[in-house]
């Protein structure tokens, strides 16, 4: 329905909205939305459009760009050989695959770490529960770089862990902890934990205890109850947390550059190199476009599945789980 129609028809009786809409022009609305439209239009949408254009331009010999269409930036990611000097090389593809693998493992590990704790916290008495939630949220506000620095201190050759192990007599000489994929994973899990915990906790707290009891009463064992009652009911939290962890992990370059060194490069490091050292901006832009499209595709998938779950047609989701719980006999 048209806004003006609604406004003018109601205007006669009373003023239903805070900002009474003038007859035709929504001056109030324009005033409220003007700043954000101008700002995000110029400093958010336009940069993204320019980046998209750059990803299709030819890189200049000494940095900079040549203004001609050039699709090989994307081809190069896949190992496409371009020009007489370059050969078929899947080094970028390998880094890409590693980034996906690391991001997926990080999601799995944060889930593994957070799920039991979220259960434990949800069963605490209110005061202690709030305190625990406070403790989990607090690191989220602490400086990211400081929290990662802590792990540099712990994992480096003369670091805390090596000192501890040699004092205990477990090792003779320092073992290689930092600059490994494990170190990168530890760092990523450490900074991503709050992103997984909070959505997970939200869905676990809402869990209806009676459904679990019903499942036990009807003869289902612990594993069956978990797999067929608890897991489906907490799936929204799991999916939400997975999305929130996966997105920032995929393009992360701070963690691999501090804890992975030159050995464990991720796609984010590649982007950084192209912009700050190799000065091949079009290739860097193409890599960034790739990260962005993966993220957008995932988000669209996520929004569509959650909307389906919430839409009137999809309200069957909750009763269906109940049915399943009842059908366990």
């Amino acid at each position, binding site marked *: 329905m048209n806004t003006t129609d609604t406004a003018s028809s109601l205007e006669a009786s*009373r*003023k*239903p909205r*805070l*900002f*009474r*809409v003038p007859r035709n022009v*929504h001056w109030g*609305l324009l*005033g*409220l*939305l003007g*700043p*954000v439209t101008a*700002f*995000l239009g110029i*400093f*958010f949408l*336009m*940069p993204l459009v*320019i*980046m998209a254009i*750059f990803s299709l331009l030819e890189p200049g010999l000494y940095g900079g760009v040549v203004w001609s269409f050039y699709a090989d930036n994307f081809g190069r990611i896949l190992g496409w050989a371009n020009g007489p000097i370059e050969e078929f090389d899947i080094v970028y593809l390998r880094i890409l695959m590693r980034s996906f693998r690391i991001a997926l493992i990080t999601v799995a590990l944060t889930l593994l*770490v957070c799920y039991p*704790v979220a*259960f434990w*916290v949800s069963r605490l008495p209110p005061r202690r529960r*709030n305190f625990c939630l406070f*403790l*989990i949220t*607090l690191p*989220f*506000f*602490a*400086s*990211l770089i*400081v*929290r990662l*620095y*802590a*792990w*540099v*201190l*712990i994992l*480096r050759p*003369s670091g805390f862990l090596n000192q501890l192990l040699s004092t205990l007599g477990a090792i003779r000489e320092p073992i290689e902890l930092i600059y490994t994929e494990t170190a990168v994973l530890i760092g990523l899990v*450490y900074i991503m*934990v709050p992103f997984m915990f909070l959505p997970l906790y939200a869905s676990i707290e809402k869990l209806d205890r009676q459904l679990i009891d019903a499942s036990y009463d009807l003869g289902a064992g612990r594993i069956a109850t978990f797999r067929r009652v608890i897991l489906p009911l907490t799936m929204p939290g799991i999916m939400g947390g997975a999305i929130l962890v996966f997105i*920032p992990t*995929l*393009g*992360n370059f*701070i963690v691999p550059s501090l804890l992975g060194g030159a050995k464990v490069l991720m796609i*984010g490091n590649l982007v*950084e190199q192209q*912009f700050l050292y190799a000065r091949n901006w079009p290739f860097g832009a193409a890599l*960034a476009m790739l*990260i*962005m499209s993966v*993220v957008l595709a995932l988000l669209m998938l996520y929004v569509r599945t959650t909307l389906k779950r919430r839409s009137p047609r999809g309200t069957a989701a909750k009763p269906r789980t109940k049915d399943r719980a009842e059908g366990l006999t």
Partner: protein
Amino acid sequence: MSKLFGLLRQRFLTAYSLLFFVFLYAPILLIVGYSFNSNPINMMVWKTFTLDWYRSIFGLSTQLGENALYVESTDQLLAAVRTSLVVALTTTLFSTVVGTLTALAVARYRFRLQSFYRFLLFMPMVMPDIVLGIALLIFFVSVGMPLGTGSIILGHCTFLISYVFIIVSARLAGMDTRLEEASADLGAGVWTTFRRITLPLIAPGIAGGAMLAFIISMDDLVITYFISGVDATTLPVFIYSMIRRGIKPEINAIATLLLLASFVIAAVGLYLRNKQHSATPATTEKDPNDE
């Protein structure tokens, strides 16, 4: 027998959770501890308690030898702190105003592009930092805008507006619109209603959004890293490049001070929010359907 297993399982879960909290806090406490260690050669080996690292970052006289002073110049550090504060305060002010205006528009009007605006404001929050960072870098260089404090401020605002928008929107959604209607019925104009009814009611949301914007701006590393140029360095970028050059005891002291500052701000913010939550929704707390 099954009761015994239940107890064991409960014990295991508790132990697991306590380990989780150790995992969260031990690394942070480690830095704090080391920042007071006087051993200049190996900071992992405890020698004696000292405040010298703190003194040295502020350029005060210490008992350390000349060669133990690692922060190239205290001026650099203080300049980074100053840049960070200027950026954070400016972005907080701007993004709080714009974010609140947008939230008011989306919550109190019905218009055709409403879902587009929700989407537009959602985007900067989910855009990976590195993508936004390089998009802004290309943009600033393409339009010929010099990189520096100005570009950092503009860059931070692109995503901080969204955070303020989300928090103020949540507050507006939970607000009783009948109060505004009553005010209008009693003859108050648009401006008076806003100033005397809406604003006081959403003020906690605005304050919360502003606080979040300030913290995120102070902490942002990736986007700042790309668009800061050579002249302006914020504190996180300064620490990042310091760590990359090598581990020095001063970093512990700087990190500890930074942790202290962000924990104090966050704790005050969370405390105020909890207080409000327990103070305002008296009706929902007594709701029998709640549990």
